[in-house]
């Protein structure tokens, strides 16, 4: 009976329902049977006619008491249809046959054998729809019935299928036990075909267990039997197995060749399941060989065939890989569609639903469907909560994607607590990773939002919590990495507690190299916080430790950083002395990069003291040497600055241009060099190059964090040109635009397109007023500007900018 209420609209749609019916042993109602026959007659008229005749005969035989004959006939037909790729017909026959069998006498051998065959077919059908537990039950029943019926061939077939089911479940020991038992039976019966299948199965089990010697042993034995009893299907199995062994041996060329042969042989055998399996492995080899497009094409062929033949369990194994390959080859929309199909298949099989939801959620995010993607990920989190330990790795990935998704959706800050609470449900290490990720993403958001409020404190607390979840031996390294990352984001204040915690852990674990590295980085963070004496103490500790064991790397860095600290403290002689020590160590170590950097540092200390000739000599050595581009650019920029200060704007402009050509400086370094070039060109009176450089400086400044020093230099440079009457170019408008833009960027509004009303308004106002004279002397302009700023910016930012403009020197 169609007890589950399956509705029939066509062979493809109804298949899982029919198979389920066959597996559970129900019969088909007459009306349903007729409906099925009609739909099959449309799609395969010859088969349906044969089937109708056979089933009618079987039913008739049953009615007159010849149940054995009818059951035998049906079981044989069901096996035949399954092997020839017509699972729907096999399923119908299974249902009919099992229903007939319930009316028969249990101890008759023929009946038992027929029932065993049908349970075996039902198990294979169950595998096709991904119902492994039911498949296993069917095979166990089949084996038990076959033993009672003393049918060794059937016992062996059921054992082989039990072995395959155990392999799918990852129980390799049971799989091997069943396979060896089946092999013995086939050997006793001298069944060569059965032996080859079992030898290949044992080879596959050995591959999955990573036992290559054993795998080679089984494949060699299978090859021996295959020479006298081979057919394309079995040959394909051997090539496939050899391919998998080659993959594990790392010989991808040999694997590629073997799997190509496996695919060809499986196609000759018209064995869809083997063809799909071989294509899947062939695709994996292409992926391993870094040929993702080829891998995708092969896997797409496998999936298409599996869809046509309703090989659900193969589909469920392949679709996640296909999604990933489609993403990797830039086919995000296809990946989304495949992920949707995966979820359908998983829901039908009632397994792997959480993984499918997770993958679909991720694919949605990749396609810009942020809200539904986050909903799908929430569903995946919920589905994985049923077996959280089993799905721990999946939950880690889902949480990772939830964090990324909320970040893309700009909803991270509103979900901090919920995400952190979820992280805390994971095991300690993944929890630490998730909290670290959450903290660092939020730290990135800090760069574009106001530094005030609760967020910095929350970020700091999350990152510290992530550290404390680690054992003390594994605490120092992430503290170093997080601090370096935060340093690059300009979040200096957040690094101090992390590095202090890391230093304490490294001391406790006796990690001497780590201690030195953290002391160095902590010292630099303290310099940023203007805590110079504390920084100097740390550098001194490193000098003491590193002197003992000739750790020149630590020693050189400590002296170099002491020099910079003294420069900031205004202690120029100490700065020079420390830089000289750093230079001496670099000369000892023979490290060319360290040497060049030390020379630039020493030159800067000379410049601070007005010793420009000494500085120039050192900088010229760096420029003429083999230093890194970044160091050379810094040296050239400093030479430009010296030339400009000595009334040589043309030489200065040349130096700045060279610095820009050398490249590879930080964004801020590039902006500073461009400003230097503007200043030099303004002083040279070269109008066109000046305007071009000014425009490049505008672009460069837009990419760096707001910096009052840079903005002031830019503004003064632009005004100097304007006040000297060199050009009608609206310098003020440009300067104010940059200043406001930089401040606005700090406030979190990145929409600085040309249509931005604030910039347009400012541009018009400044342009109009700029022609009447320098704007800082014009109260009307400042008043207009103030009103515009207050309308469009937070009060704090508006006040700061107005104050800055009012305080500008004439």
């Amino acid at each position, binding site marked *: 009976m169609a007890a589950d209420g399956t509705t029939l609209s066509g062979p493809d749609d109804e298949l899982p329902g029919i198979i389920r019916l066959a597996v559970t042993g129900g019969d088909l109602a007459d009306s349903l049977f007729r409906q099925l026959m009609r739909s099959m007659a449309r799609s395969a008229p010859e088969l349906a006619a044969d089937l109708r005749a056979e089933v009618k005969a079987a039913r008739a035989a049953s009615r007159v008491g010849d149940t054995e004959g009818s059951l035998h006939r049906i079981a044989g037909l069901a096996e035949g249809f399954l092997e020839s790729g017509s699972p729907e017909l096999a399923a119908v026959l299974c249902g009919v046959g099992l229903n007939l069998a319930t009316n028969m006498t249990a101890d008759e051998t023929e009946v038992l054998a027929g029932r065993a065959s049908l349970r075996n077919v039902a198990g*294979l059908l169950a595998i096709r729809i991904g119902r492994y537990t039911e498949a296993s039950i069917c095979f166990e029943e089949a084996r038990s019935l076959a033993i009672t019926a003393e049918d060794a061939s059937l016992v062996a077939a059921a054992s*082989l299928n039990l072995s*395959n089911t155990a*392999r*799918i479940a990852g129980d390799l020991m049971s799989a091997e036990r069943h396979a060896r038992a089946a092999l013995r039976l086939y050997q006793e019966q001298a069944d060569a075909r059965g032996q080859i299948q079992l030898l*290949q*199965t044992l080879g*596959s089990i050995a591959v999955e267990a990573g036992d290559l010697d054993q795998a080679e042993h089984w494949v060699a034995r299978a090859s021996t039997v295959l020479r006298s009893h081979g057919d394309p299907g079995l040959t394909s*199995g051997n090539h*496939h197995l050899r391919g*998998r062994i080659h993959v594990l041996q*790392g010989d991808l060329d040999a694997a590629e060749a073997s799997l190509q042969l496996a695919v060809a042989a499986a196609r000759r055998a018209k*064995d869809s*399941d*083997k063809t799909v*399996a*071989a294509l*899947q*492995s062939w695709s*994996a080899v292409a*992926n391993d060989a870094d040929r993702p497009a080829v891998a995708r094409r092969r*896997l797409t062929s496998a999936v298409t065939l599996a869809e046509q033949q309703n090989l659900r369990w*193969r589909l469920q*194994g392949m679709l*996640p*890989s296909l999604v*990933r390959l489609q993403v*990797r080859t830039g086919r995000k929309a296809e*990946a989304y569609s495949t992920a949707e199909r995966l979820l359908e298949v998983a829901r039908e099989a009632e397994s792997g639903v959480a993984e499918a939801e997770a993958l679909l959620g991720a694919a949605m*995010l*990749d396609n810009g469907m942020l809200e539904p993607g986050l909903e799908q990920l929430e569903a995946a989190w919920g589905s994985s909560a049923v077996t959280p330990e089993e799905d721990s790795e999946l939950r880690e*990935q889902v949480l990772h*994607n939830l964090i*990324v*998704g909320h*970040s*893309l959706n700009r909803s991270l800050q509103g979900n901090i607590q919920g995400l952190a609470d979820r992280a805390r449900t994971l095991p300690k290490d993944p929890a630490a990773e998730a909290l670290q990720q959450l903290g*660092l*993403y939020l730290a*990135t958001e800090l760069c574009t939002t106001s530094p005030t409020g609760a967020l910095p404190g929350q970020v700091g607390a999350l990152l510290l919590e992530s550290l404390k979840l680690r*054992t003390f031996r*594994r605490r*120092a390294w992430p503290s170093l*990495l997080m601090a370096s*990352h935060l340093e*690059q984001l300009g979040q200096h204040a957040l690094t101090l507690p992390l590095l202090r915690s890391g230093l304490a852990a490294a001391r406790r674990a006796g990690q001497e*190299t*780590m201690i*030195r*590295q953290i002391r160095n980085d902590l010292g630099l963070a303290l310099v940023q916080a203007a805590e110079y004496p504390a920084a100097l103490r740390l550098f001194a500790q490193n000098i003491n430790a*590193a002197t003992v*064991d*000739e*750790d*020149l*790397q*630590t020693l050189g860095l400590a002296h170099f950083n002491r020099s910079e600290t003294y420069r900031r403290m205004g202690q120029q002689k100490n700065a020079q002395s420390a830089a000289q020590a750093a230079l001496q160590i670099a000369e*000892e170590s*023979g*490290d060319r990069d360290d040497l060049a950097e030390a020379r630039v540092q020493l030159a800067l200390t000379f410049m601070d003291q007005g010793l420009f000739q000494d500085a120039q000599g050192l900088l010229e050595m760096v420029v003429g040497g083999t230093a890194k581009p970044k160091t050379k650019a810094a040296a050239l920029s400093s030479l430009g600055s010296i030339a400009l200060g000595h009334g040589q704007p043309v030489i200065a402009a040349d130096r700045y241009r060279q610095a820009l050509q050398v490249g590879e400086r930080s964004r801020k370094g590039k902006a500073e060099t461009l400003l230097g070039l503007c200043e030099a060109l303004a002083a040279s009176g070269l109008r066109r190059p000046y305007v071009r450089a000014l425009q490049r400086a505008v672009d460069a400044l837009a990419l760096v964090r707001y910096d009052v020093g840079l903005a002031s230099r830019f503004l003064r440079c632009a005004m100097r040109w304007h006040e000297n009457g060199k050009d009608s170019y609206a310098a003020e408008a440009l300067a104010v635009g940059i200043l406001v833009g930089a401040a606005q960027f700090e406030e979190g509004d990145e929409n600085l397109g040309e249509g931005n009303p604030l910039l347009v308004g400012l541009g018009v106002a400044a342009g109009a007023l700029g022609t009447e004279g320098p704007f800082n002397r014009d109260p009307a302009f400042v008043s207009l500007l103030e009103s515009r700023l207050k309308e469009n910016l937070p009060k704090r930012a508006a006040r700061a900018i107005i104050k800055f403009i009012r305080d500008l020197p004439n």
Partner: protein
Amino acid sequence: MRSGQLSDARLAVAEAIEESGFHEAWYWERDGHAGPFSSRPVCIGQAETSDYLILLLGETLTEVTRDEYFAAKGAAAVVIIFVPSTCQRDAEAEAFFQAEATTVTYGTYRSPADLKSRVLKSLQAHAVRILRERQLDRQLVTNPATQLTAATGNGGS
């Protein structure tokens, strides 16, 4: 290198790597096992599947070391070369160094402690770059790096 002159250096590199608590070092003298097989494929297999390869280049360069180096480089591992500051390389080693120094990170060292600091610094710089790139590349959240699964069987029975 297999010569005794670099044994302290090899140990120093391994210690520096393992101080992180997250990375595990492997080198034949400490981690290889004696057995009736050639060490060459084992060493090359390790090099190919490592995240980093740190080459200590002394006076000479053995064939196995060269093969390990190129196996790791071919497998897109991060390779870093360190040379002792007072070492006189033979012609072959020098030619190798001159060719490779243009494409990979390298440095000199004075003592084992110096080498440890340089190794840790290199790992830190690389790990932070990865962290930053991963965060910048957040437009793609499905995980394409995950290995694809090979078929689990040879077809049904």
